[in-house]
């Protein structure tokens, strides 16, 4: 199951000209506001008709200007979760959910009503009306409604953007579960690096209507070249990790390909796999194995590339085990330590620097 998009479309202040592929899993369309992300997702859903190009879902063209194919939105069978929920105000939560199921393709596979309700934790809301739900509740119902339409693919347009951070934290685990428990590929529009780092399996980066970088999430996020576009304070890499032990002093020990990480307690059972995002400015670099230092996490590695910024800083990419880390340090330090690609270094990470939101819940 994959989606191929190659479209051109004239927008008010720029031209959208993109070509990318979204494989299984969650593909994040990442970019600042006004870079054409929503236009792309609208084109895929059929709500926007691009000037030119084609969109192919699982080998079937759903839009193709050359072949004059333009399947109307209601026949594309794509579940769209809008930023503003768009629950029907005249229907209860239950009937909103059933609205999704009502037009579902009879032969389509997918989770049933009870399963979706349980997955999203919306059983207590079923008999309420949408007007009185909180933002987070509305979005969960909207996700459930889209799922119950048994879509071939989910389209999510910044589903968390209108929520405060507590509500985001309430929904992120559901999206992670969705990724793990269903086979439905998802196109996820976001301008939040933290969300992308936590959810995406692939990333398509957009700027001014063009794709600037696309690929697996770990690669794109740990590429020093993309750091500027993510925003230097947000740049960081993601490491797949496995929970090893919960220590009595409140720390959780995880194994990553390059060694071990000790982080503040993570609420997941031993043996479960997760992913940890480590921000580039939270990493210190040491030539030798540092001793007598408070930081608990020291990952050995080799510098694979160095990217010079315009200011006093620079970004190093370090290969540790099979994974890549990004470290942001000053040029002065790099010169003093004569850091070059190929140099062996130790990446030092304070346990408490890793924020709770940057650890996936599964």
């Amino acid at each position, binding site marked *: 199951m994959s989606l191929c998009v190659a479209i051109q479309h004239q927008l008010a202040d720029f031209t959208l000209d993109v070509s990318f592929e979204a494989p299984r899993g969650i593909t994040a369309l990442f970019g600042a506001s006004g870079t054409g992300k929503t236009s792309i997702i609208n084109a895929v859903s059929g709500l926007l008709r691009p000037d030119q190009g084609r969109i192919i879902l699982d080998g079937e063209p759903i839009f193709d200007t050359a072949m004059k194919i333009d399947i109307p939105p*209601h026949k594309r069978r794509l579940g769209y979760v809008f930023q503003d929920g768009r629950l029907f105000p005249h229907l209860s939560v239950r009937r909103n959910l059933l609205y999704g199921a009502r*037009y579902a393709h009879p032969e389509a596979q997918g989770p049933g009503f009870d399963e979706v309700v349980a997955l999203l934790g919306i059983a207590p809301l079923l008999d309420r009306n949408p007007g009185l739900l909180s933002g987070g509740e509305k979005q969960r119902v909207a996700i459930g409604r889209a799922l119950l339409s048994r879509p071939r693919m989910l389209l999510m347009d910044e589903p968390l953007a209108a929520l405060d951070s507590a509500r985001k934290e309430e929904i992120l685990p559901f999206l992670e579960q969705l990724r793990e428990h269903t086979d439905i590929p998802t196109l996820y529009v976001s301008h939040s690096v933290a969300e992308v780092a936590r959810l995406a399996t692939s990333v398509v980066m957009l700027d001014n209507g063009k794709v600037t970088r696309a690929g697996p999430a770990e690669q794109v996020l740990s590429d020093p070249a993309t750091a500027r576009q993510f925003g230097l304070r947000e740049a960081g890499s993601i490491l797949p990790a496995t929970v090893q032990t919960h220590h009595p002093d409140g720390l959780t020990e995880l194994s990553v390909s390059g060694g071990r990480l000790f982080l503040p307690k993570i609420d997941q059972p031993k043996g479960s796999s997760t992913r940890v995002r480590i921000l580039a400015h939270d990493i210190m670099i040491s030539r030798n194995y540092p001793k007598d230092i408070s930081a608990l996490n020291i990952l050995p590695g080799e510098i694979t590339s160095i990217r010079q910024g315009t200011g006093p800083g620079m970004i190093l990419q370090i290969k540790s085990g099979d994974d890549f880390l990004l470290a942001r340090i000053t040029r002065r330090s790099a010169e003093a330590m004569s850091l070059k690609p190929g140099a062996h270094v130790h990446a030092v990470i304070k346990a408490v620097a890793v924020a709770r939101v940057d650890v996936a819940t599964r």
Partner: protein
Amino acid sequence: MDWFGQEEWQAVILSLKVSVWAVLLSLPLGILTAYALARWQFRGHQLLNGLVHLPLILPPVVTGYLLLLTFGRRGLAGAWLEETFGLVLAFRWTGAVLAAAIMAFPLMVRAIRLAIEAVDPKLEQAASTLGASRFAVFTTVTLPLILPGVITGVVLAFAKAMGEFGATITFVSNIPGQTQTLPSAIYTFLQVPGGEGPALRLVIVSIIVAMGALVASELLARRARKRVSGV
């Protein structure tokens, strides 16, 4: 009810019958016209808008006379209707229905159009991505959401139909028991000596019917509004 003459009764019943039919028959077309004016862009949009509103600004007598010219037995449409369906409108109660429907149409369309314009098209888009065809989107999302506006439109149209006088009397005349509606009856009673009593009674009936319709519509619209507000 011997204080209520047979002629008066006939007028009241006829008016109710004419108004109900006028509203029922014009409602589907009213919703379609309102939807077209609110949502569709097409050539002749302004022309359609003007035509719909014409009865509101023309003198009713002119509308009635135009109806007589077109739908009279020698009129183009009238002759065709009689030949094809055996339907005669001029000087019949059916003609009163047509006159009332046309006079009430602008009010009905206006109320429904306002309601359609207030519906967020984003909700209709959401429904279409969930697999609902255009027609299904209309019946399951748009129509329930505009229900308060439809009720308002129906009541306004009903009230206008009950009170329609000029076009009706011009097109179908004022035949007791056949085309003498409530306003025509009041007018007739006022023309003869000693008619003030029956006229006054009919005036009271008019007021009661109008108030009843208004209250009923307010209750219905309030319930519908509560339902579509989503709280």
